């Protein structure tokens, strides 16, 4: 840990009880997949949590060293399956950097629209699951009702609803269907008031406030020290969004605010995500207005992509934080070495520290506001 990290994480005092170890997961309804938390308890109070990973390890990094860049896109969608388009995009940017090509203008806008739709869909799912983790079942179905509309758009453009493969090196795979623009516009029109409905259904509820305000506070310097990114970092008061600090694609052409909150507690993470959905709608609206109406969507690539010798790095802001790829090429059609920096892995590191001293039920709440996706942690 850095020496300049000074702030102490506030922890409630636990009365003395006998200690008990309990396994939360890998099969548990609230660990969102197959994360295993070994929890040390004193009664209901958490003395310590130790996350155990690797239950869905598929060695994606190693497989990337045996697959061509075009084949590997399909594995990037399976990292954080809720940010598939952003992962595709980061990988596409890396290959484009390596080959020194630039995607066509129209493709850049399509990428932004798809990525922001994915961000909304991901936050919708998170919102529903967050409600369910707190014992409210209804938000889950509301969220899925709206997520379905985005999924329908994805299905029309690229055929799949979950692990999408639309963004590829050189642009996007193909021209979207004829109704794409009107579909997205009608979704924006539909969804803008629905976010307020989400607020009415959950945000104002006294129990939600009691359960989240001040619970699991992650101070800004700790968040930075652990390498947290995305909403988790921004909720701690750090105004860091890759779309702003290092705009990729055409993000510098849009006007939007990064959602930042200063408290660093679960409630701040909740508010940041809801605000991000609003900002994403704003970005999509601007992108639709600015997008060229026709033109190529895919740059011609060599039929066998050989990665030139050298080191390449590309990163993108996914729904949960910063996804980054690092490749060492040696002129062969497959990378010599591939490394993935996944947002959830870094975010999860902060979790054991801030949950100490809280209750069993808070493990679920705080973990839910970290919004982890386990396949992204294990890779």
């Amino acid at each position, binding site marked *: 840990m850095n020496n300049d990290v000074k702030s102490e994480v506030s922890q409630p005092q636990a009365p003395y009880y006998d200690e*008990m170890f*309990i396994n939360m997961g890998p099969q*548990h*309804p*609230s660990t969102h997949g197959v994360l295993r938390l070994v929890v040390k308890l004193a009664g*209901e109070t958490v003395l310590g949590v130790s996350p155990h990973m690797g239950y869905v390890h598929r060695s994606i990094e190693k497989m990337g060293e045996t697959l061509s860049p075009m084949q590997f896109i399909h594995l990037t969608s399976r990292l954080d399956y809720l940010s598939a388009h952003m992962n595709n995009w980061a990988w596409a940017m890396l290959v484009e950097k390596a080959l020194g090509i630039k995607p066509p203008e129209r493709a850049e806008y399509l990428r932004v629209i798809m990525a922001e739709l994915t961000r909304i869909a991901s936050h919708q799912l998170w919102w529903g699951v967050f*409600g*369910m*983790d*707190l*014992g*409210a*079942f*209804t938000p889950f*179905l*509301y969220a899925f*009702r709206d997520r379905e509309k985005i999924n329908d758009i994805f299905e029309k453009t690229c055929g799949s609803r979950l692990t999408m493969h639309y963004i590829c090196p050189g642009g996007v795979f193909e021209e979207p269907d004829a109704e794409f623009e009107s579909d997205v516009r009608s979704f924006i029109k539909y969804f803008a008031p629905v976010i307020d409905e989400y607020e009415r*259904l*959950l945000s104002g*509820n006294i*129990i*939600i406030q*009691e*359960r989240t305000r001040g619970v699991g506070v992650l101070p800004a310097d700790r968040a930075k020290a652990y390498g947290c990114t995305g909403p988790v970092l921004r909720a701690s008061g750090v105004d860091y969004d890759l779309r702003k600090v290092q705009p990729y694609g055409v993000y510098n052409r849009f006007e939007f605010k990064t959602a930042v909150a200063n408290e660093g507690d679960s409630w701040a993470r909740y508010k940041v995500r809801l605000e991000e959905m609003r900002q994403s709608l704003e970005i999509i609206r601007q992108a639709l207005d600015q997008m060229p109406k026709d033109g190529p969507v895919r740059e011609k690539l060599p039929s066998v992509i050989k990665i030139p010798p050298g080191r390449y790095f590309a990163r993108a802001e996914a729904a949960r934080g910063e996804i980054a790829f690092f490749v060492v090429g040696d002129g062969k059609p497959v990378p010599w070495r591939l490394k993935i920096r996944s947002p959830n892995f870094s975010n999860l590191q902060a979790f054991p520290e801030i949950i100490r001293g809280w*209750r*069993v*039920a*808070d*493990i*679920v709440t705080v973990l839910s506001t970290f919004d982890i996706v386990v396949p992204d942690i294990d890779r």
Partner: protein
Amino acid sequence: MQSWLYNVDRLVETFSNWLELRVGSSIAAEFVKAILAAGLIAVLVSVLGLVLVYLERKVAAHMQQRLGPMRVGPHGIFQTVADTIKLISKEDIIPAHADRVIHTVGPLICFVAAFMVIGFIPFAPGLQVVSLNVALLFILGISSAGVLGIISAGWASNNKWSMLGAMRAAAQIISYELSATLALLAIILFTGTLDLQGIVESQRTGWWIWRAPVVGIFAFLIYLIASTAECNRTPFDIAEGESELTGGFHTEFSAMKFAMFFLSEFINVFTVSAVSATVFLGGWMPFHVDGLDSLNKVFDLVPPWVWFSAKTGAIIFIIMWFRWTFPRLRVDQLMRFEWKFLMPLALANLAVASVLAVSGFYFFRS
């Protein structure tokens, strides 16, 4: 208005006279009647279980913008029947190293506690299995014995999650019992009787929820909240807490043992709704306002048992409504809410109610 729809008590009386003539001795007739009553309660409990589970699923579905069960029978009305058949035919699994005896007894205690109190509820004039002069006390006592079943289930399962759930249930149910009892006590001061039929009779000129000024509505709300907690329903379902405790005390139960927990939860919901309908909303008594005779006559056209069912149903719906719109409290917040807010409020309410009752300051005093 001499039809049997209105005067169920006459029907019951005719039947018992006929039975006494047929059997010959009154003791034997009582015995037959007791068995018949027990059988009727059993039928009622199973039908209630089926109907309430179906209702819950439909209420939940329509709050969540979906249809709920639609396939088995018209509008899925036979879905719960199919589910019951499934539960009966499933394998009963007792985990390794579990305490087999207590594991079996746990759900039984829960179920029996829920089952027993049905007999005291006055469904209509004369339509009550046991008329006891301390019926309300008895109901409160028996229904709180159900927590023993939950604790033994959690203890016997040999599972740490179940144990946590059982401990939570113990703390929660025993605490909220206090507020529920204090809330009922405030009304008992006005009625002057613990007999449920007597409580209903005392509301001939108006329901206690509004006749007892302010304290009536407070007592009703406190009882509604506390009894929701006693039934282990959201927002107080921390004993099950499926997102944190994976089901809590009933994690390790399957087949009919699980069904007994499930059924007793719904029967408890019915019981607390029936008790609050009886104590606060006049039970089977139609809506009466003293002095407005023509209005009272109009309301008398509806049979008493319809009044009772409608009031109980409305409260059941409110409790279901809670469940599908509220998240769950944390265990320490739950205890804080009870001991630092609800119970002091109930005590204050009781104090005010006693002053009002003694000074006779309430509406339509006869």
